[in-house]
């Protein structure tokens, strides 16, 4: 049934297969019409090779090209940049399939394929993508190989041979590629400024907070970032990673509408206690947020602090980004600067019931710290439930939550607590970010997943400054609806951490998970995150500290030449002709005889030698003659080898 495939020349088969494989990783990303168009062109080409459909003349091709380009421009609003550029390249690749007349066309198509493979890395640099695209490179190289071998003639080897050679070639090329990768100087990009390279909706925190924003992330196992600490803190679960800070409340949504932000580099707080140093490897999320443990002390180059002490990068993080930070987990922030009025303002009539409640409290409580404690007490004693799927709060979310539903996730608690504080005249703001992390026992670093996204509150107290208050931490255990959330709440209430005992399968799955994450992390550190800093580390490790990029290039050139010299010596050495099995067996026979004192001379025929041996050792006469006969049969009479070889082996054993 698959005979129709044989009708297509081998190199075209490989080419079409590789174009399909090149297209696949992009299907989820490019507009649907483009996928359809490319697949149709592929199908057309297959049918054309089978001579079932006619070819394309020049005009339809031209029209398709122009129409395709315009459609790409329309879908992406541009034709330059990462998204539009790659879509255009895919379009060109598939359109090239309609014009494969001359040798040059075919080679151009294959080279375009290579190019799209490299462009694919602009979208993902995971291990899977790397492994998959290596296979695609092997396919394209095999098609080049098949083309160089048999061009358009039908004679050719089965395509597995081409794949074999292609794979061998790539394996041989790996060491040199690794050498180039390590030593090639990393020039600072970008070389040209492009319109903001598209915003892919990625999971993570957002620019604003409304009920439901953070709870939607609870199921996401996607890694937000990983952190390697110089010294792992004892209570990893106590780490609060500061993200976007919101102070503007419009009645439903918390946001941060400052336009031009005044960048801070100096830290106006008093540090208390020990400093923690760590390196964060942040997954790309197209925003400028960088995450650091409250409060960052030393910020990395290329970043700044907002007035709310959120760490931001100068450029959006659209690639894996590694940065080193140090923080003081204990601090006193702006203890004696009364904050701006905006931290107290609320829209009028945003939460009337809450207003009444606060007025009630204010009759007995006059000190802000006591007010904070009172509010927390309210959350603890009243039946509030910490739930992942709280009911929706269409209007008046704060009142609804505080008095009616009383079921919510961290954003509900944080938001309503902040509103309560503001109603009491205490400056407060909502802080979102991540909380805690899991330690990977294999490589000792902390993984923070999207499921650890969290929201808490910060209140300003005279003499103490901005103080973190996490209302969810006071929820008693019995009122936490899902088991996973327990670990997030208990440490602050000083209870013993309940470890859920996993069964054997669960344990090994978790181990595997950790192992995989460790591998992934190594990949991120050493391959994806390889930059000039890492290069300098390697140079230092080799003992060549004072190496500028000029010296790197020299080292590179020398290394490559040495490698190529070495490779040519190995590849070009004359190979010994491999003996056929019969010859090997016969040589073994001769060696055996030599041990007994009978050496076969170079010009002695097998039969003559056999006669001589039979004279000397009449006992083994039959076996010896059988061996010689089989030898002749295979070498000169072209008889089936297998049985003769088997017989020879048998006879040899008898000797």
């Amino acid at each position, binding site marked *: 049934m698959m005979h129709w495939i044989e009708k297509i020349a081998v190199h075209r088969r490989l080419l079409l297969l590789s174009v399909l494989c090149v297209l696949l990783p992009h299907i989820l990303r490019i507009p649907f019409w483009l996928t359809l168009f490319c697949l149709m062109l592929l199908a057309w080409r297959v049918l054309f090779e089978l001579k079932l459909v006619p070819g394309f003349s020049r005009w339809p091709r031209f029209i398709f090209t122009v129409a395709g380009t315009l459609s790409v421009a329309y879908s992406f609003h541009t034709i330059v940049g990462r998204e539009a550029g790659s879509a255009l390249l895919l379009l060109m690749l598939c359109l090239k399939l309609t014009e494969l007349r001359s040798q*040059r066309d075919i*080679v151009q198509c294959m080279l375009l394929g290579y190019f799209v493979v490299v462009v694919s890395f*602009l979208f993902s640099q995971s291990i899977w993508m790397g492994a998959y695209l290596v296979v695609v490179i092997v396919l394209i190289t095999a098609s080049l190989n098949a083309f160089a071998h048999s061009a358009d003639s039908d004679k050719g080897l089965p395509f597995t041979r081409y794949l074999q050679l292609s794979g061998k070639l790539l394996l041989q090329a*790996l060491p*040199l590629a690794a050498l180039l990768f390590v030593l090639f100087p990393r020039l600072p990009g970008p070389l040209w400024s492009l319109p903001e390279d598209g915003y892919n909706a990625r999971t993570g925190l957002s620019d604003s907070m409304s009920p439901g924003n953070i709870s939607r992330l609870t199921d996401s196992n996607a890694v937000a970032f990983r952190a390697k600490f110089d010294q792992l803190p004892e209570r990893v679960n106590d780490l609060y990673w500061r993200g976007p800070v919101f102070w503007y409340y419009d009645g439903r949504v918390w946001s941060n509408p400052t336009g031009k932000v005044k960048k801070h580099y100096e830290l106006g707080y008093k540090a208390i206690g020990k400093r923690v140093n760590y390196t964060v490897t942040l997954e790309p999320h197209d925003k400028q947020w960088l995450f650091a443990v409250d409060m960052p002390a030393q910020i990395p180059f290329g970043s700044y602090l907002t007035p709310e002490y959120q760490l931001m990068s100068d450029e959006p993080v659209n690639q894996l980004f590694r940065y080193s930070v140090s923080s003081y987990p204990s601090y006193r922030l702006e203890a004696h600067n009364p904050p701006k009025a905006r931290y107290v303002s609320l829209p009028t009539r945003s939460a009337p019931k809450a207003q009444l409640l606060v007025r009630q409290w204010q009759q007995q409580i006059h000190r802000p710290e006591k007010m904070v404690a009172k509010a927390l007490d309210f959350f603890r004693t009243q039946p509030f439930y910490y739930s992942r799927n709280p009911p929706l709060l269409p209007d008046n979310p704060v009142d609804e939550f505080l008095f009616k539903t009383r079921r919510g996730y961290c954003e509900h608690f944080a938001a309503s607590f902040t509103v309560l504080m503001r109603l009491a005249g205490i400056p407060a703001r909502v802080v979102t970010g991540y909380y805690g992390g899991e330690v990977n026992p294999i490589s000792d670093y902390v993984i923070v997943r999207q499921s650890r996204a969290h929201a808490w509150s910060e209140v300003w107290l005279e003499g103490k400054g901005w103080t973190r208050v996490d209302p969810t931490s006071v929820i008693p255990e019995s009122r936490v609806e899902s088991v996973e959330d327990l670990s997030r709440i208990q440490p602050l209430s000083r209870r013993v951490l309940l470890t859920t005992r996993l069964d054997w399968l669960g344990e090994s799955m978790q181990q595997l998970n950790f192992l995989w994450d460790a591998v992934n992390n190594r990949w991120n550190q050493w391959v994806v995150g390889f930059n000039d800093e890492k290069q300098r580390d390697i140079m230092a490790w080799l003992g060549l500290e004072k190496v500028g990029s000029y010296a790197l290039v020299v080292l590179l050139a020398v290394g490559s030449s040495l490698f*190529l010299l070495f490779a040519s010596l190995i590849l*070009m050495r004359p190979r010994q002709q491999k003996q056929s099995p019969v010859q090997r067996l016969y040589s073994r026979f001769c060696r055996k005889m030599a041990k007994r004192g009978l050496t076969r001379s170079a010009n002695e025929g097998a039969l003559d030698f056999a006669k001589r041996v039979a004279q000397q050792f009449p006992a083994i006469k039959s076996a010896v003659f059988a061996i010689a006969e089989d030898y002749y049969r295979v070498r000169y009479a072209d008889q089936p080898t297998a049985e003769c070889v088997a017989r020879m082996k048998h006879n040899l054993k008898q000797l």
Partner: protein
Amino acid sequence: MRILNQISNRFRQWLLQSQFKRLLLGRGPQPGPLRLSYKDVYILPTGAGLMYGVMLFLMLIASINYSNSLGYLFTFLLASVVLLAIIHTYRNLCQLVVDVSSIESGFAGGSVRVSLLVENPGQMKYAVSLSNDNGVQQRVDLSEYAKTRLLVEEPVTQRGWAPLSKLTFETRYPLGLFKAWAYVHFDQRILVYPEPLGHGLALRREQHTISQLGDQGQGVDDFVGLRLFQMGDSYRHVHWKACAHEHHLLTKQFGGNSSDEIWLDFRDYADLPLEMRLSQLCRLVLEADREHLDYGLWLPGTSFNPAKGDRHRQQCLRALALYGVAA
């Protein structure tokens, strides 16, 4: 001025005699077998190879621009692949041993088949193409540790000795990005007979005057007489009885049909230019041979008595080919 001349002469001498000679002019014609060593194989990128280079450059630019690590890695991987391909392409041609196995002789204006024996003492070599001045002759895969016979068509134009044209072995395997080639120039020569032209035997028979000597008695039918024994006469035809009397060997002669033998004489065509003469004679020789006649050839300096057979034909043709040509 003289000094400059001297210097330039010396320099030219040195160039020609040094290793550069081989580089600039290639090896001159040599007797086989010839081995393609590393000195004889040249290698350069093809058009596809140059396009590949441009592609690598663009990839590198893109990787630099987006600081994309895997982009760098794969660009370097593809660059290494092509560098290794150079070695593979080179290896695909090196160490072949070529020898001329046989050369046909042919007629001017036609072509001649030269049979080459190519030995591959190493691993399998793919897509090796052989070409001469006439274009690409063959494109083959050469099996490992084996000999392959290849045929080459050589057009020949002039009679006499024609040199074998320079052969080129070329390959672009494995990736078509680099082209390796080597020249093979044998010093063997092709014997080119003159182009058979002019009128045929039938016309000639009409014009032919009956041989002045009458019936020479070279046939095999009736006993006509005796003549002195000549070297090459069959011993069956010796008249032994007569020998007993005469004390020297005598051969019986048998008369055949009148004039079944012809003499092809150079002097008969004095009105033609030399080449035409030879071409005419050549044609006649071929026709006579085809019709199984006994024919003799007379050329200034050589003559062949009437006879027939392959060897006689070859001798005659060779004489015609090499008439006036320095050996």
